């Protein structure tokens, strides 16, 4: 019976896999992580242009004070997440693995910028015009917190000629292990709902759908109940399937519309924002609070205390691991994000960024890749690809640097979800070569 019910739920219709969920920290309430002694705030955390640093070594900063100003439209402001004295401004290795500029701040007390409303009372009234909302979101440096870190104000600026009819709030959290969005929905439902109303107003739509996977029944129930107090917001529970949290997959699952190849959600009348982003939007608009903290899941099979922490941006990963009982013995890999799309870190001293959804500690025995066999042409990668591509073929094209054919075979449509590499019975590194192929195609395009 339950099985039948599950099958009737909406989901996307092309490809997909179902990795073991391992949501170890789903019952751990969000804890405030104690203030660190120092933060390292990366300046370039988003897609687009890096912002310009406006503080100098020795400056005193308050919590929420701007330290880097966006350059151009597709860029984002960066604020200090703590109060104290600016230290070195230098390059550090961040979670992307690259060396990038970052501002060190030595923490002293916890003095907030006066314009920020730190109270917990809910402000439901939205007195701002759509333009003002977008401006406030841009000022607050809000970026997508689902992983891609795309500046949110860009997604709210609808170009002439495009008509948006639906706002989708992404509460799917399809990555195994991660529970940050789940906990946020359970503990801050009203803030998310008001945030949704703000986004609806900014876009001028009267319909919003919150998509949540069916493995978070408590969140579905709660958001369904709370959403009744807010006009135009409905909840849709979705069949558990990876990568449902992908924008294109979620839009197809909820609205049955396919974003065209190379297109944007706006092309089919939809805009998608993550629940974490929506929560930050609420604070940005109603409380004048910039994006200076976020929920981060710390998890892994051997972790003593899998947990969800409210963390100031720039806190070192080490601090989070210490708070969860220290680094377990035989840890072979530290992943920033989920196991399917996250980045393996080379160092524990990497700072938490706006898009860091989790820290996953993988034991040594699971951290190495297994022996690779010949491709047996089983076709499982084709079956699993949510974009309808032929991964085995794209891998060969990528390997052979055949950029023309790779482009023709839609290699740039690949969303790098990893379903092909995950499912391959021969353990072939399919996605590695597709990434390589994608960058060759892009390079060839730029050279033209």
């Amino acid at each position, binding site marked *: 019976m339950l099985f039948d019910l599950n099958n009737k739920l909406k989901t996307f219709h092309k490809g997909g896999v179902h990795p073991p969920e391992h949501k170890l920290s789903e019952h751990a309430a969000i804890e405030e992580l104690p203030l660190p002694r120092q933060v390292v705030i990366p300046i370039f955390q988003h897609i687009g242009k890096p912002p310009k640093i406006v503080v100098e070594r020795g400056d005193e900063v308050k919590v929420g004070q701007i330290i880097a100003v966006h350059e151009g439209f597709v860029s984002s402001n960066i604020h200090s997440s703590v109060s104290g004295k600016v230290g070195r401004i230098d390059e550090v290795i961040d979670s992307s693995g690259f060396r990038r500029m970052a501002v060190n701040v030595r923490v002293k007390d916890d003095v907030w910028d006066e314009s920020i409303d730190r109270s917990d009372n809910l402000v439901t009234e939205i007195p701002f015009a759509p333009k003002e909302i977008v401006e406030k979101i841009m000022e607050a440096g809000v970026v997508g917190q689902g992983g891609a870190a795309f500046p949110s104000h860009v997604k709210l600026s609808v170009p002439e000629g495009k008509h948006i009819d639906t706002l989708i709030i992404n509460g799917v959290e399809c990555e195994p292990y991660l529970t940050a969005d789940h906990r946020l929905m359970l503990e801050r439902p009203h803030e998310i709902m008001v945030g949704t109303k703000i986004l609806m107003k900014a876009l001028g739509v009267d319909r919003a759908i919150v998509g949540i996977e069916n493995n978070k029944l408590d969140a579905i129930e709660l958001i369904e109940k709370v959403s009744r107090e807010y006009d135009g917001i409905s909840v849709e529970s979705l069949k558990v399937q990876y990568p449902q949290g992908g924008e294109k997959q979620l839009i197809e699952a909820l609205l049955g519309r396919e974003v065209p190849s190379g297109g944007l959600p706006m092309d089919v009348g939809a805009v998608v924002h993550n629940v974490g982003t929506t929560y930050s939007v609420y604070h940005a608009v109603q409380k004048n609070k910039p994006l200076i903290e976020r929920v981060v899941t710390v998890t892994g099979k051997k972790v003593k205390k899998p947990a969800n922490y409210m963390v100031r941006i720039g806190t070192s990963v080490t601090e989070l691991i210490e708070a969860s009982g220290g680094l377990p013995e035989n840890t072979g890999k530290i992943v920033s994000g989920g196991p399917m799309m996250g980045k393996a870190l080379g160092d524990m001293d990497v700072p938490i960024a706006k898009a860091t959804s989790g820290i996953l500690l993988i034991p040594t025995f699971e951290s190495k890749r297994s022996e690779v066999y010949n491709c047996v042409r089983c076709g499982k990668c084709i079956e699993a690809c949510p974009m*309808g591509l032929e991964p085995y073929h794209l891998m060969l094209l990528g390997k052979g640097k055949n950029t023309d054919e790779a482009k023709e075979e839609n290699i740039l449509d690949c969303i790098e979800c990893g379903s092909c590499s995950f499912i391959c019975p021969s353990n072939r590194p399919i996605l590695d070569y597709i990434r390589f192929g994608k960058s060759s195609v892009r390079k060839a395009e730029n050279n033209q």
Partner: protein
Amino acid sequence: MSTTLLTVAPSPHIHQELTVPQIMRGVIYAMLPALALSVYVFGIGAVNVTVIAIVSCAFFEYLICTYLLKTKSSVADGSAIITGMLLAFNVPSNLPWYIVVIGSAVAIGIGKMSFGGLGNNPFNPALVGRVFLLISFPVQMTSWPEPVASWSIDGATGATPLGLLKDGLRVGDTVPAIMNEMPSNVDFLLGFQGGSLGEMSGVALILGLIYMLYRKIITWHIPISMVVTIFILTGLFWLINPEKYADPVFHILTGGVLLGAIFMATDYVTSPFTHKGMLIFGVGIGIITVLIRLFGAYPEGVSFAILIMNAFVPLINRYTKPRRFGNKPVTNG
């Protein structure tokens, strides 16, 4: 500072558990019921042929890998064992040992390794071996042993049911008259028939199919489309003239249709990628099988049908590419 060495590799960081050696092992488990029944019916001969085929297939693959290709031996992935088992399933249980060895050499050497080993061969290696033997040793390949177990059947010794049917029709007998002298379809389903080592028992083969579907090693598309096509086509002819054409159930239960549909046509390497392609592939095998059986010289025809359709796989793949996401007409509103 800690000195933990961290692995840094691109995502994904987890992998599903079904790997090639496990799949191969699963296929071997799926073949065990049919093998067990064969040993029960044909006795030690079935064991001999199977062991000789497996050992020589593995041995030839090892030799070719080590001395000709000078690479690491690929025997451990288990595919050579399956080729050996399938070859044994496709020959009589009293086949002389040297013929089994020759068949194994052809299956592995020409059918598989000459193309570059696992994953690169266009034709099913076991069938390449079988057809080579069928053409080179027609007498030994078509003289079937009498079951040693005490089944009370007479008609099934010496020739296969399909062979009896073809011979009977050739001398002018009607189908009902021939059928009178043969065991019932229920007997065929259970395995009380003469024939190749692994093709006799529908029940044992279907058990294997259920196991492989349960383990998600194969999908239903190829076996079902192939069997249904044969059922419909032979059924049509049977309805038109039951005097001349045997009933569809008889056709499905005899002559390796189930063995072919479940174990031979579903070989990953030599079958299409997509479900749509698999359906075309299965239907194609069904049509060719029926054509050979009803209008050709050979009594059965599954092996040839599969090999012919193997050759079409690249073409099928080309025309059954998955639909790319984002090509659906936009229905905004």
